[in-house]
């Protein structure tokens, strides 16, 4: 049994790590065709080209960071605030069900139907339009996420604070917020990822003017050159990897 376990686990690890290594390898290659198992060229010329030419990968990276950061910040904070109201509401069951709708509809279809309104609001094809559009998907997620936080336990803490003479502000800052810290971080991380990985909705509302990293990745993938595609994928994976490293212990504290 132990040997079997070792083999299976090893297989598992290999399967997980393989994509990362392969993509990294591909990004450093050129002239790698069937049936070669190793590339004919191996070096950093692709990476150099990306950062020196005006391909815009650097700007896209920063644009994506900016957008995702904002979406995560607003969705998490507003979601936290509004979910409190919903969770204590007598109609909370209906309301949280309603909150699911924007979350379950495919963002790309949602985006296609929203074009008219974004045009009217003059947000179509703008950075803030994309932030808003992505928030429409991330905010419901945050709402749903936090409903599991607000419950009897927290309510009784709030009441305890009131009984002991503290005002609402003190209760919030000194009791509720610290209790929620872990969840706030997870939610920030999750909504950041939702925005970071978003393609369909962004390509429709941003109409190609707002070039996030995923849009760029898609562009490179569509062009015949897949070495650059692999390179863009590597860039796309870096922040999530970094965030996971930071947040690992926070990611799965509460179940939806």
């Amino acid at each position: 049994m132990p040997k079997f376990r070792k083999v299976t686990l090893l297989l598992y690890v290999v399967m997980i790590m393989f994509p990362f290594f392969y993509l990294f390898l591909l990004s450093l290659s050129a002239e790698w065709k069937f049936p070669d198992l190793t590339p004919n060229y191996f070096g950093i010329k692709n990476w150099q080209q990306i950062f020196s030419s005006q391909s815009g990968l650097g700007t896209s990276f920063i644009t994506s960071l900016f957008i995702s950061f904002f979406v995560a910040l607003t969705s998490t904070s507003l979601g936290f605030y509004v979910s409190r109201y919903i969770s204590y509401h007598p109609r909370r069951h209906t309301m949280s069900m309603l909150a699911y709708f924007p979350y379950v509809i495919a963002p790309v279809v949602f985006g296609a139907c929203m074009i008219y309104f974004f045009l009217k609001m003059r947000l179509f094809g703008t950075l803030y339009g994309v932030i808003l559009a992505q928030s429409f998907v991330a905010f419901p997620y945050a709402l749903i996420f936090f409903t599991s936080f607000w419950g009897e336990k927290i309510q009784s803490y709030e009441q305890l604070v009131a009984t002991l003479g503290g005002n609402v502000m003190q209760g919030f800052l000194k009791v509720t917020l610290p209790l929620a810290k872990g969840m706030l971080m997870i939610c920030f991380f999750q909504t950041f990822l939702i925005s970071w990985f978003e393609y369909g909705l962004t390509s429709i509302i941003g109409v190609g003017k707002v070039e996030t990293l995923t849009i760029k990745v898609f562009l490179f993938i569509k062009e015949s050159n897949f070495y650059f595609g692999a390179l863009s994928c590597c860039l796309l994976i870096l922040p999530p990897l970094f965030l996971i490293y930071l947040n690992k212990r926070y990611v799965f504290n509460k179940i939806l």
Partner: protein
Amino acid sequence: MKILESMLSKNSENKISLGLFFVLAILPVAAAFSYAVLYSFGVVGIANEGFTFRFWKEVLSTGEFIQSFGYSAAISAVSMVISISLALYLTIIFHKDFENKILSFIAYLPLSLPGVVAAFFGVQVLSKSGFFSRLSYKIGWTEDLSGFPDLINDQYAIGIIITFVSVVAPFFLLLFLNIYENEKVDELHKLANSLGADRRQSIWKVEIPILLHKSKKLISLYLIFLMGAYEIPLILGREAPQMLSVLIVRDLKQYDLTKISEGYVIAVIYSIVIGMITYFIFSRQKQVYA
């Protein structure tokens, strides 16, 4: 300070929260849905001429939409079954090993791979000229390119399913591991043993039911997500049948301007079905998570 305080107090909080809830969560969906409905009946749309049932008739009479629906549902179901089985297996057999710091970190890595990257990677390794094909050629299993089986852009959606599984299974593995720990399934397992159950019984009648029951909502959600997936089927799918989101977007972007409304018809039907399924998931829930 005062403003913040009043925001947190129960009374005015009602109005602001309710307002935010409507504007950010309800209104967008309602507006998008209304627009799609109007477009599907030809009421809006530059190339349209006014209210008509024409588009609805056209879509409902051709088989393409129903086929796409069934296709998407089947792919989603198969992917979920495989993912959950894998995740359950790994959780139940290896949960102790995953307490190891390194292994546990590795288990989180797949979360950093988005659909686009997974699909691109899928093409790189599964295509006829991809990595696995080259391996099999070197080993001697296939004689040339065409000997390698069709794994992507094929009718059984093998490439799509494999990619879905590679994205979904890791998430469920982590979820199940988490539930396992939180619900102290290990203790329950020991308890079952002490009451006379053997290993098999305790797995099938105690551990699996608990893990599945606690994640029921997420499983249903993921089923819906996979059905409406866009990027992965866009890259790895074939021209026909197409998964729902790809079909809808294709219809909305087509050359024949007078037929765009058909795309909106499908979008409306898709939304209604998803809405109904969501409602169904919720109405079955008697218990609210504390």
